[in-house]
């Protein structure tokens, strides 16, 4: 790039009597710059090479500036990429906060282990390999031996101790879980669902639930989904969150047992207190989560949409029943409808009852036939349980007539393979409706 030299004087407005001299044509031939002098140039130095480059590649100063600038940038990017990739695969560089470097190793309980290792961007997602690599990198940089020989010459290994403590904590799954449970660097703010616009709903709560999902013992966790998620997806999602099983625990917030005291009573008292505190926090956390899910569910625009859709479907059905008339319903019609509805409900209840009875009968037969296990052996508990659950599912999915039919067949067969085959036959029908069967497949 062109270097710039600042001249040692200041320009002011030109005096009034000065006018721009007209020089056109006057000086041509007089100017000795027009007739350059031949002199020997040393073929040496970076500037000579730059000049040669301009000349050989026929570039003007501006073009060359641009080209060199581009070249430098690509070089820098390449160097950066190489630097980052080769030594520490997959780990970007994190700036070391000077405040972090001054940290006291005695205060390790308060330190942010991820930040110490330079994994601030990864946190609970960091894999064990990444932790090992990050630790190695930090040790190479901050080892006391290196510092003593370096420019500062200090023998301060406080930060090195912090690194070791962070590594220890994060490598042990139990201590890491405890630390992750109370990781202050991850914010836990949840916006009020009532103030969130419906169109932004998924964008706002998606990340929040993804964040909370880290505490789930069961992985993977269903995602919040988009605005156009199906009813089933949304229901599965809320179902999951109401049955959320969290590994979060609060040992990390325990109060230190007073070190000076060797009184067993005092220690026990503290332990007890800590335990109570942990339980309280855990309970609080569960409540917090449930309340959050409640709040989100209550104003979820998708749920509202499903309701509206259902209603529309019902209305359409009704409209069809009323002869396709779009007229508003009269009081009589409404009454008739209500009666019809009640009837339907009654019927459904009856059907359910009947089905239940059928199921009981079938279950009896199944248990009588030793759960279709060879005579003389005791069926294992899991088999029994499985068969019973499957029967539950089966009857849920069967129509009332079908269940009656099944019951008849099974009762007729008494026990043995005929009954089993009959159940299997019905199960295959039910499987078509979404049931899953193993024992009666």
């Amino acid at each position: 790039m062109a270097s710039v030299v600042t001249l040692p004087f200041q320009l002011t407005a030109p005096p009034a009597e000065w006018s721009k001299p007209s020089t056109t044509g006057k000086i041509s031939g007089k100017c000795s710059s027009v007739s350059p002098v031949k002199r020997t140039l040393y073929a040496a130095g970076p500037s000579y090479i730059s000049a040669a480059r301009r000349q050989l590649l026929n570039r003007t100063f501006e073009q060359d500036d641009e080209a060199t600038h581009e070249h430098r940038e690509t070089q820098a990017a390449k160097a950066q990429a190489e630097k980052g990739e080769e030594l520490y695969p997959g780990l970007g560089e994190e700036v070391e906060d000077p405040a972090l470097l001054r940290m006291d190793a005695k205060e390790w309980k308060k330190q942010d282990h991820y930040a110490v290792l330079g994994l601030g961007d990864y946190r609970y997602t960091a894999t064990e390999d990444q932790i090992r690599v990050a630790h190695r990198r930090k040790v190479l940089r901050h080892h006391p031996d290196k510092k003593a020989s370096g420019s500062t010459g200090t023998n301060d290994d406080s930060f090195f101790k912090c690194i070791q403590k962070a590594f220890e904590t994060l490598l042990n799954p139990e201590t890491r879980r405890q630390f992750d449970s109370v990781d202050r660097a991850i914010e836990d703010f949840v916006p009020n669902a009532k103030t969130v616009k419906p169109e932004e709903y998924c964008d706002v709560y998606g990340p929040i639930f993804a964040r909370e999902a880290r505490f789930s013992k069961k992985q993977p966790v269903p995602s919040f989904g988009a605005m156009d998620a199906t009813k089933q997806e949304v229901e599965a999602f809320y179902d999951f969150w109401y049955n959320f099983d969290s590994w979060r625990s609060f040992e990390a917030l325990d109060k230190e047992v007073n070190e000076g005291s060797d009184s067993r009573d005092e220690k026990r008292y503290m332990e007890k207190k800590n335990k109570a505190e942990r339980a309280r926090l855990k309970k609080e956390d569960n409540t917090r989560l449930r309340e959050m899910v409640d709040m989100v569910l209550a104003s979820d625009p998708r749920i509202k949409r499903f309701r509206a859709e259902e209603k529309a479907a019902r209305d359409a059905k009704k409209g069809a029943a009323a002869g396709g008339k779009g007229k508003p319903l009269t009081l009589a019609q409404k009454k008739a409808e209500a009666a019809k509805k009640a009837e339907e409900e009654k019927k459904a209840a009856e059907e359910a009852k009947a089905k239940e009875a059928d199921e009981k009968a079938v279950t009896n037969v199944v248990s009588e036939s030793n759960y279709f296990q060879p005579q003389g052996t005791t069926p294992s508990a899991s088999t029994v349980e499985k068969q019973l659950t499957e029967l539950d599912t089966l009857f849920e999915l069967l129509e009332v007539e079908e269940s009656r039919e099944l019951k008849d067949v099974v009762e007729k067969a008494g026990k043995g393979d005929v009954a089993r085959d009959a159940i299997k036959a019905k199960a295959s029908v039910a499987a078509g409706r979404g049931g899953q069967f193993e024992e009666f497949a």
Partner: protein
Amino acid sequence: MLVSRPAVLGINFGQSYASIAVIGKEGHASCIANEDGERQIACAISYNGEEVYIGNGAKPQLVKNGNNTIIGFRNLLGHTYDEVDHTAVFGAPLIPSSKTPAYTVDVLVMPPAPSAPSTRAGSTAPSGAATPAPREPEATKKTISVPEVTTLFLSTLFQSASDFLGVSPTGTVISCPAWFSADQREALKSAAADAGIPVLQILEETAAVLVGYRVGLTEERQERALLGQPEEGHKGEREDRDKTVVVVDLGETSLNVAVCKTGEGEYVKLAQGRELNLGGKSFDDLLCQHFAKEFTKKTKVALTIPCTESSSQADKRAEAKLRLAVEHTKRSLSASSGAATCAVESLKDGMDLSGSINRMRFDGLAAPVYRKVADKAKAVIAEAGLDICQIDEVLLAGASTLFPGLSAHLSLVFPPTTPVTSALDPSEVIAIGCALQALHLSELPAELKVEDVLKLAESPVDTTAAPIGIVVPGQSNDDLLSAVVVPSGLALPVRRRVEIPVAQGTEKVAFEVWEGKDDVKVDVLEKAEKTADDEEDEYSDEEDEPEEVRTPITKKTTLLAGLELALTDKAAKSVLFEVIVQKDGKVDLRLWQSGKESEVAVASI
């Protein structure tokens, strides 16, 4: 993480000493020691029986084995026998040869093994033949030409560098003196190629010094603390973009002075001169004479030094011994401020020499040499058409400039604002410059070839003939340029950009662009009234001369253009002015407010 640097090598190949430099970590060039632990490697080869000594080990051989020791061979490269001076007193004599000068040395070589009788194969039965006598090496004459000597010597340097780096260097730049003809450069290049050295360039020593100091590369030079320390002025704090520099290279056997224009790191030679037989040898001679006199005075044994052809063998040997010893004395003189000793056991006729010399005494002895160096520098500056006050910096190179007395003398000759720089060790700067140049050449972008790049400077290039500068209307001194933007002597095309501060609230700026002429203003300072009670008349005579103060100035000669620019941005603190002189001598001028490159006042001539 360190960026891996290419393995490149710079060789300073002097007449008497050579040194090698490599690029270390982080791109710093540094001189390295060879396997004997020497950074200054003597250019000497000695044959002694079956042994061959190369480098510093060969020097002591001069005493007893002078006829088989080859020194001072570099300058003979590319010459025929008739062209060179073959009256060397020391070392192996040259033999008249048809074309290339060559030496004859006595060596012992193994005779070729006798052909083994074939019948003996597999048989252990005693045969009548006697056990073959152990083979004795035979004394023979060996003829070795100057290029062969050079090849042998350079290959040892290259080997040392390879051992140091762990890999064989991929590019090498070798220095040569400025007066080397094209033939001689070619001869050096082929000798190096024969030694298996990948030669990128044969670089002039002057250029190597400039590259080594990174003259004109403002930031880099400041960063690496390579600035000289003048007595006054700002030149010790920041590096100017365009400078006129004198390179004084005082080697072992010759002095080379070059005046160069360094425009933003492009080096143009203005003038150069060479003084033979002035260098470290001169100091050696002085010391030898001094100690010989002392020796004669103490022991009453006659010893005349320097020797001539007709001198006795004893004298010659004594001189060789003494020369080796004073070399050490010379080094301790330049290294430490105390007295330096010289001791030779049995210098002549079984008498020992033991003496010492302090720095002041030595500076007294060497004053004529110092004066000669300064005179030569002045002569070369005059040849370039410059005045001594127009020189911005003096760079020292060559081990003989290490004497503090010499740089002190030079700084008296030059104005106090001109630094006499030896920030880099003068004995290493050439090798360092060569290594840096090799680095630059090896980092060329892929689309450029080294040969093409170097070819551009083979013939003289166009340079600016006169300085171009600006004249601010209403300035106090009418016939001078307010500031020089493009100095004379810069290789074309050239671009210079300056920033001119603007006074607060100015609405319009305007100035004229003029061509100028470098000149010297001589102010005669009237001496202050002498105090009446100044008694010493001898001194007062000298002081009567009025003191001259010479300052470089630039007079304006031709008006090129006028430029004006209305300042739209009231907050602007400065304007930028750019001059580009194209290869055909066309001048483009641009003026704009800083940060507003769209509004620009343009003129071209």
